[in-house]
């Protein structure tokens, strides 16, 4: 995990930071302060505070398997929070991300079951459908020039209705049939929803994928031309276009990346629970966005990181499960969650303010 990333790299390759280029206007600030100014450090500290808090408040959290459980919850949020964060850095929202996960799972499940196919056929078609939804979102955005909030709100409602109506039409029920006894299920389960043993603790494979994807996203964001394009289109679309950044391609591909994430999490849902309930997924989009924002991604685009949302998702999972581990009154559950999240964001903000103060 690299902590030395640029919050806002220039459009062109940034010039090598020469230590000699001091012009006297800015004195070099101590390393600790410069580190604190990184957007992901604030959320990292926030996550540490929340973790320590629950280690004291909820004794069961001290157990290794509890941490594995929290990481699992965080990973299913975090895998989606990554592409959602990249999209936000690129200056757009995707409100359809939550239900798109279910659309993908429903597609794979119903196709395999109804046609009695190897489940891998369903998995691949679901990928195509998910990428297609991303493509549609991006294409509508570019063609109409409408804000992504509106475009994806439309897709959100469409998918919500389609999920229900098509499932009802095809299966006659509101949930899909179990595919657990079909060919290819075990293989797919091994990839999307298996568990492995680390020193006696059962860890879910999604945790590994989450970290792999986060490392990949960080590399793309910081070391590739495409990463620069993302920052550029989120910062200022017109000037990005003027300096030759393919704005259309970047935005559409970012939406398709969210589609990819939705497919992956959808497949996890399908292969860990065998069936899919068509009404699920509503409201999840806000959790993904929240994880990205807590992780230091600007709502206005142009700034953020891929590591921040990892801690954002962890914090969300930690708070959500921590409240249960602590055994607090469940009626207050949502209120606790809100207060903890606001608190975490405030810590994040305070750390950044303090660190960047001259």
């Amino acid at each position, binding site marked *: 995990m690299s902590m030395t990333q640029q919050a806002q790299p220039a459009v062109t390759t940034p010039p090598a930071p020469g230590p000699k280029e001091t012009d006297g206007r800015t004195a070099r600030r101590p390393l600790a302060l410069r580190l604190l100014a990184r957007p992901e450090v604030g959320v990292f500290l926030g996550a540490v505070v929340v973790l320590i808090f629950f280690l004291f408040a909820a004794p069961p959290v001290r157990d290794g398997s509890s941490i594995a459980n929290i990481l699992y919850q965080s990973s*299913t949020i975090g895998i989606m929070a990554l592409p959602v964060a990249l999209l936000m850095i690129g200056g757009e929202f995707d409100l359809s991300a939550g239900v798109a996960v279910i659309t993908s799972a429903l597609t794979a499940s119903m196709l395999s079951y109804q046609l009695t196919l190897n489940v891998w056929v369903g998995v691949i078609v679901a990928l195509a459908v998910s990428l297609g939804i991303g493509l549609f979102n991006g294409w509508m955005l570019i063609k109409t020039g409408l804000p992504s909030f509106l475009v994806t709100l439309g897709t959100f409602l469409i998918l919500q209705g389609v999920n229900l109506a098509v499932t009802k039409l095809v299966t006659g029920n509101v*949930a899909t049939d179990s595919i657990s006894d079909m060919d290819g299920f075990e293989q797919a389960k091994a990839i999307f929803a298996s568990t492995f043993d680390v020193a006696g603790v059962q860890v879910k494979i999604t945790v590994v994928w989450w970290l792999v994807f986060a490392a990949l996203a960080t590399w793309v964001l910081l070391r590739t031309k495409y990463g620069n394009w993302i920052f550029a289109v989120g910062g200022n679309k017109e000037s990005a276009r003027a300096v030759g950044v393919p704005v259309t391609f970047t935005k559409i591909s970012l939406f398709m990346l969210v589609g990819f994430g939705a497919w992956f999490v959808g497949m996890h849902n399908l292969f860990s629970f065998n069936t899919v309930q068509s009404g699920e997924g509503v409201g999840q989009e806000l959790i993904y966005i929240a994880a990205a924002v807590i992780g230091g991604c600007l709502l206005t685009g142009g700034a953020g990181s891929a590591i921040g949302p990892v801690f954002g998702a962890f914090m969300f999972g930690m708070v959500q499960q921590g409240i249960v581990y602590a055994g607090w009154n469940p009626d207050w559950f949502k209120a606790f969650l809100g207060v903890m999240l606001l608190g975490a964001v405030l810590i994040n903000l305070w750390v950044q303010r303090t660190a960047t103060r001259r």
Partner: protein
Amino acid sequence: MDRSSHTRSRRIAPFVAVAAAAALTLAGCSSSSGGKKAEEGGADASAGKADTPRMTVALVTHQSPGDTFWDIVRKGAQAAAAKDNVKLVYSADPNAGNQANLVQNAIDQKVDGIAVTLAKPDALKGVIAKAEKAGIPVVGLNSGVSDWKDLGLLEFFGQDENVAGEAFGKKLNEVGAKNAVCVIQEQGNIGLTQRCDGVKKTFEGKLQILNVNGTDMPSVKSTITAKLKQDSSIDYVATLGAPFALTAVQSVEEAGSKAKVATFDLNKQLTSAIQNGDITFAVDQQPYLQGYLAVDGLWLYKNNGNYSGGGEQPVLTGPAFVDKSNVDTVAEFAAKGTR
């Protein structure tokens, strides 16, 4: 511009993929086990059709979208409608104010009968009075067993969630549960809250409430796991919907807990889980019966002036318990999605 050709090639990608999938199917990429093929063979029972004049019945419930329970209520209503030569208009909204508007909508359509759930009786009082003024008979189903008479409804089918909960609590006593957790998948949902309240009323052990995010299964799973870790003396997990019971089984396993799982409502997968012992029992209010009887009751009233219970007593549809002893007979119907 090469940029647009980029997007165009991406635009056709899904179609290429679908075509490829179709080709794969032909190439023999089919599953040798499970799937639809293994499932086919059971023809639906078809009954005759009444020759009474065509009538329209509106069924207005407080269903939230995609709920299995309500899907079965609706199927029962549809079956009765098909048999009785009734045109069924179904609408639903979990928000009581909106539900009242839907009843008003049915009055405006001049339907011949209205079947309505009374999750929040006060919100529906006014609009039910209007229906009566317009001469439209109104029957109640599912919730509102203590209010239907006051509101002047003709008859009532079903039972309160409370009653189902109380029966569930008694059953928990019978099986020797000491510390149970009631899992609510939608915080603040009145029907679900009533179920847990009912359990609390009759259950002699300790009952805890756990709210989970029902729209996100992985989250449901981790939250139940967390609860079982937090209190390792929990010996029964009571879920309020079949899909959550199946997830709770996974949580119990993950937490290394000895807790057993019991649930409200049924579905196909749940009956097999009862068969293989993963789930101890399910309480069934027979939603199919509620929908069926409500529509059939209105048909009888219109054509022969009958009304069940004589306006005094409700018609109870449950609680029916499904456990290992009777699951085999139920499983057949649950597989069709009607039980």
